[in-house]
C-alpha cells in the first residue's frame, strides 16, 4: 500500500492531447470544425441538426423519429435496396439518429471513393423518397419498438420520470410516439418533419481524418447546400418538476427499477465544474462514488448505481438510476436519501483531489480516434465553446476549491426534494 502511494505521488498531470482544431468556412458559408489526420485513408463526418424529436408538432408525436429512420430508405432515383447496395458497394457507413435535442448524422467514408459517398449522403439528406413501401415497413418496426417498450421496466420508468418532470413539453413523452400517433402519421407529416428538422439554420458540423480544409469546404457545400435555409421554430425552455416523494408503478418481475432526480444546472452556470466534481463524487465514475460504495460495495444491494448531470438544451436535472431485488427497495431508497443528505454537508479534500485527477486525467483519453473526435467537436460547438477549449478545460477543473464544491453541494443538493419513480413489485416503505 505504501509503495503504491509513493509511486502515485511522482506521477504528474498527464500530457494533454494535441488536438489541433481548424475552423473551416465553405465557399457557400457553412461552418465546420476539422481535425486533419492523414494517417488512415478515411474521413469521419458528424452533422447535428439542433431540435430533434422535440420539434414534433402537436398530435404528431413520433414524426421526427420515423422520418429519421427513413432517411436511409431511398433517395433520388434509388429505392431502399438500391441505396443500401450503393452505400455498401462503396463501403461507406452512414448512421442517422434522433434524440430530444437533435438529429445526428455520423458518416465514415474511404478516401478512395469519398466524392461518390458524399453524393450518396447528399441524396439521402436532401431528396429522401419516403416511399409507401419503406414508410409502412419502418412504421411496423417502430410500432414493435413501442410495444416492446411497454413491457420493459427500465423504459417504463424513464418515461414515467420524463412525464412527471416535464409534463406536456416534448421532453415529457416518449419520442417514438404512441401506437396511435405513429399509426396516424402520413407521408405529408414526414415531409413536414424532414423540412422542419433538417435545415441550414441549425447545423453543427465536424470532420476528422484524411481530408483537407479545402476539400471539406467543397464537400459541405455539395452535401448541405441543397437543404432549406430555415427550419421549424425551436421548442421553448421547460421548468423541471420535482414533486418529492415516491411515485410507484407495479410491474411483474423479480426486480424494481428506481430512478431519482432533483434540480440540475446549466453548462454555462459558473458553478458547472464544481457541480461536475460533486456529481462524480455522488455517482459518477462508477466504482469510486459514494452511491456505489454504500449501495453495492458495502451492502451488495445491486450490480450498479449511477448519477449524472443531465443537460438538455431546454432543461437540466441531476438524475440517478438503480435496479434492485424487490425486497431491497425500501433499504435502497433509504441509503440513497442518506447519501444525498450526507453529501449536501460537503466532501472531503481527498474526494476532491481524487476526482480532479480523474477528470483531468480522463479528459485527454477521449480523443482517441477520428470518429470520436468528430462527435466531440460537434458537441463542443453546440455548447458554444472555443476551439482552444481542450487546452484550457483541465485548468477550469483544477481551479475548483473545496470551498467551491461545498458551497455548491449545500446550494444544489436538495435532499428533501429528491424525487423517485419506481417500476416493479418492490415497496418503498
Amino acid at each position, binding site marked *: 500500500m505504501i509503495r503504491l502511494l509513493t509511486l502515485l505521488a511522482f506521477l504528474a498531470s498527464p500530457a494533454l492531447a494535441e488536438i489541433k482544431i481548424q475552423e473551416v468556412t465553405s465557399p457557400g458559408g457553412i461552418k465546420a470544425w476539422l481535425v486533419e489526420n492523414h494517417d488512415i485513408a478515411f474521413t469521419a463526418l458528424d452533422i447535428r441538426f439542433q431540435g430533434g424529436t422535440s420539434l414534433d408538432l402537436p398530435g404528431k408525436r413520433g414524426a421526427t423519429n420515423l422520418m429519421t429512420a427513413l432517411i436511409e430508405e431511398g433517395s433520388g432515383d434509388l429505392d431502399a435496396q438500391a441505396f443500401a447496395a450503393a452505400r455498401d458497394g462503396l463501403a461507406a457507413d452512414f448512421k442517422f439518429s434522433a434524440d430530444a435535442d437533435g438529429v445526428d448524422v455520423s458518416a465514415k467514408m*474511404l478516401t478512395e471513393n469519398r466524392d461518390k459517398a458524399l453524393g450518396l449522403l447528399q441524396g439521402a439528406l436532401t431528396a429522401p423518397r419516403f416511399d409507401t413501401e419503406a414508410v409502412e415497413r419502418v412504421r411496423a418496426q417502430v410500432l414493435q419498438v413501442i410495444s416492446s417498450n411497454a413491457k420493459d421496466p427500465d423504459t417504463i420508468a424513464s418515461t414515467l420520470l420524463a412525464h412527471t418532470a416535464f409534463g406536456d413539453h416534448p421532453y415529457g413523452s416518449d419520442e417514438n410516439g404512441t401506437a396511435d400517433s405513429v399509426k396516424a402519421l402520413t407521408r405529408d407529416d414526414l415531409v413536414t418533419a424532414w423540412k422542419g428538422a433538417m435545415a441550414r439554420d441549425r447545423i453543427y458540423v465536424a470532420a476528422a481524418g484524411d481530408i483537407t480544409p479545402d476539400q471539406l469546404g467543397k464537400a459541405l457545400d455539395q452535401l448541405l447546400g441543397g437543404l432549406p435555409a430555415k427550419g421549424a421554430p425551436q421548442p421553448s425552455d421547460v421548468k423541471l418538476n420535482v414533486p418529492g416523494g415516491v411515485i410507484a408503478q407495479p410491474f411483474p418481475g423479480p426486480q424494481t427499477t428506481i430512478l431519482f432526480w432533483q434540480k440540475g444546472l446549466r453548462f454555462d452556470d459558473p458553478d458547472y465544474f464544481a457541480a461536475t466534481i460533486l456529481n462524480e463524487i455522488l455517482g459518477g465514475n462508477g466504482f*469510486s462514488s459514494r452511491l456505489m460504495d454504500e449501495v453495492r460495495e458495502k451492502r451488495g444491494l445491486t450490480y450498479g448505481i449511477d448519477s449524472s448531470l443531465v443537460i438538455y438544451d431546454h432543461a437540466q436535472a441531476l438524475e440517478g438510476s438503480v435496479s434492485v431485488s424487490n425486497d431491497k427497495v425500501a433499504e435502497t431508497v433509504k441509503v440513497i436519501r442518506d447519501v444525498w443528505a450526507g453529501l449536501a454537508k460537503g466532501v472531503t479534500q481527498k474526494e476532491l483531489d481524487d476526482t480532479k485527477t480523474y*477528470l483531468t486525467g480522463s479528459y485527454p483519453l477521449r480523443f482517441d480516434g477520428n470518429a470520436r473526435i468528430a462527435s466531440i467537436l460537434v458537441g463542443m460547438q453546440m455548447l458554444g465553446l472555443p476551439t482552444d477549449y481542450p487546452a484550457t478545460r483541465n485548468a477550469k477543473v483544477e481551479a475548483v476549491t473545496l470551498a467551491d464544491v461545498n458551497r455548491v453541494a449545500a446550494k444544489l443538493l436538495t435532499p428533501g426534494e429528491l424525487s423517485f419513480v419506481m417500476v416493479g413489485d418492490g415497496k418503498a416503505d
Partner: protein
Amino acid sequence: MRNLLTAFFLMLALPAFAGPVTSAKLDNGMEVVVIEDHRAPVVVHMVWYRIGAADQARGHSGIAHFLEHLMFQGTKTVAPGDLSKIVAAQGGSDNAFTTQDYTAYFQRVAADRLGLVMQLESDRMHNLNLTQQDVDTELKVILDERTQRTDSDPSALFTEQMGAAQYLNHPYGTPVIGWRSEMEGLTRQDALDFYKANYAPNNAILIVAGDVKPDEVLALAKKYYGPIPPSDAIQPRVRPVEPPQLAARRLTMTDPRVAQPYVVRTYLAPQAKTGDQKQAAALTILAELLGGNASTSLMARSLMFDSHEATYVAAQYDGISLDPTTFGLVVVPAQGVSLGDAEKAMDACLAKFLKDGVDQAEFDRIKAQIRAKQVYDQDNTQGAAHRYGMALASGLTVQDVQDWPKVLADVTPQDVMAAAAQVLDPKQSVTGWLSPEEPK
C-alpha cells in the same frame, strides 16, 4: 537496453494490422502482444487468462465469473475496491469480463501510467486476499447481476435454454453467469481453489495497445510480471466433446413479459482453428449473405421486402471459440404472422439459397466492406487489442489474427456453399419459439 532485452525476449515483428504489432514471451511463459498507435497519448492494458466458464467443474457453474468479481476485492497490499479507485484517480477506467473461454481484465489510462496498472494487475495475479465478508457481499452482487441481466429478461432466459439444448455434453450449454442454485452455493474456498489452479503467468496473455514502444512495454512487463513464477498446475483445456447430434431439437417458451415473439435457430458450427480458418471465414460471409444487411441480405429481401412477413431478421456467427460454436438465425414476424409461418418462410429462404447459390453482387459488396474494414479498424486500437486477446485466449495465434483479413478475402462463393451445406444440417439444430402465450 535493446541488446539486453533481446537476450530475454524472442521478439517477432509482424506486418501491420492496426498499427505495428510485436509479440514476445516472458521466461515464465506469459505471452506479450504490443499494438502501437501513437495518435493519442492513451494505452489499453489487458491481461487475458486462458480460463473461462467452460473450464469449471460441473456443479460449480458461475465460479469463473464470481472469481472475476472477487479479483477486485484486494491483495496483501491493496485494499478491497482500491484498484479501481487508484486507476480512476489517474483518470483511467477499468473493468473485466468472463466468457466461456476466457477471463480478461483491462485498464485504459494515459500512456505514462502503464507501469502503475501493470504493478496493480501483476499484484493480483498472485497476491489475492479475500475476506469472508467481502466474499459474502460480492455473492449478493453476482446474484443481483443474474436477476438484473437474466431473470428480468425473458429473452436472456430463453437464450440460456437454447444453449442448454444445443450442447448435449459440452459445457458451453451452461450459462457463464451460472445457474442460480449453484451460484448460491459458491464459497470463498471454491474461489481460492479456482484462482490457485488457473491464475499464473503461463496461463495469461498480456496485450498492450496504444502510444507505447514495444521495448518499453517489454521492460515493464519483465519488471512486474517477470518475477511471478509459472504454475505447474495448469491443466490442458480438454473439455467434454459433443457426441454426434442426431436429432433436431425444438423449444417453445412462453413468458407474459415477452413483448415481441420471435423464432430463432442455431446450428452447431465449427470454430476457427489455428492455421485453418477457411471454413470459419466462409461461415462469416455466409452470415452476411443470409442476414447481414438489413435491406439487401437474402432474408431481408425475401422476408422484409418481398413478403413483408418479418420486421427484423439477422444471422450470426463468430468463429473465435475454443470449441465448436453456433451459427444462428433469427426472424421477428410482422404483426399477424404466426411463428410457424415465420419459421416456414425462413426455411424456404434457406432452401432457395442452397438451390440457387450465392448472389454475386451481394457477395462483391460484402468483399468491398471487408476490405474497407481493415482501414476503419485502424481507428480503433482498443478493438484491435480485443481481437488479439480473444483469439489468443481461444487457441489461435498472432499469425492467425494477421492472416484473417486475407483468409476472408480469399473466400469464394463455392467455399460459402460448401460451408452452408455442411452446417445447415437440421439434425444439429435447435429451433426456438419465444412468445407471451402458447402459440396457436
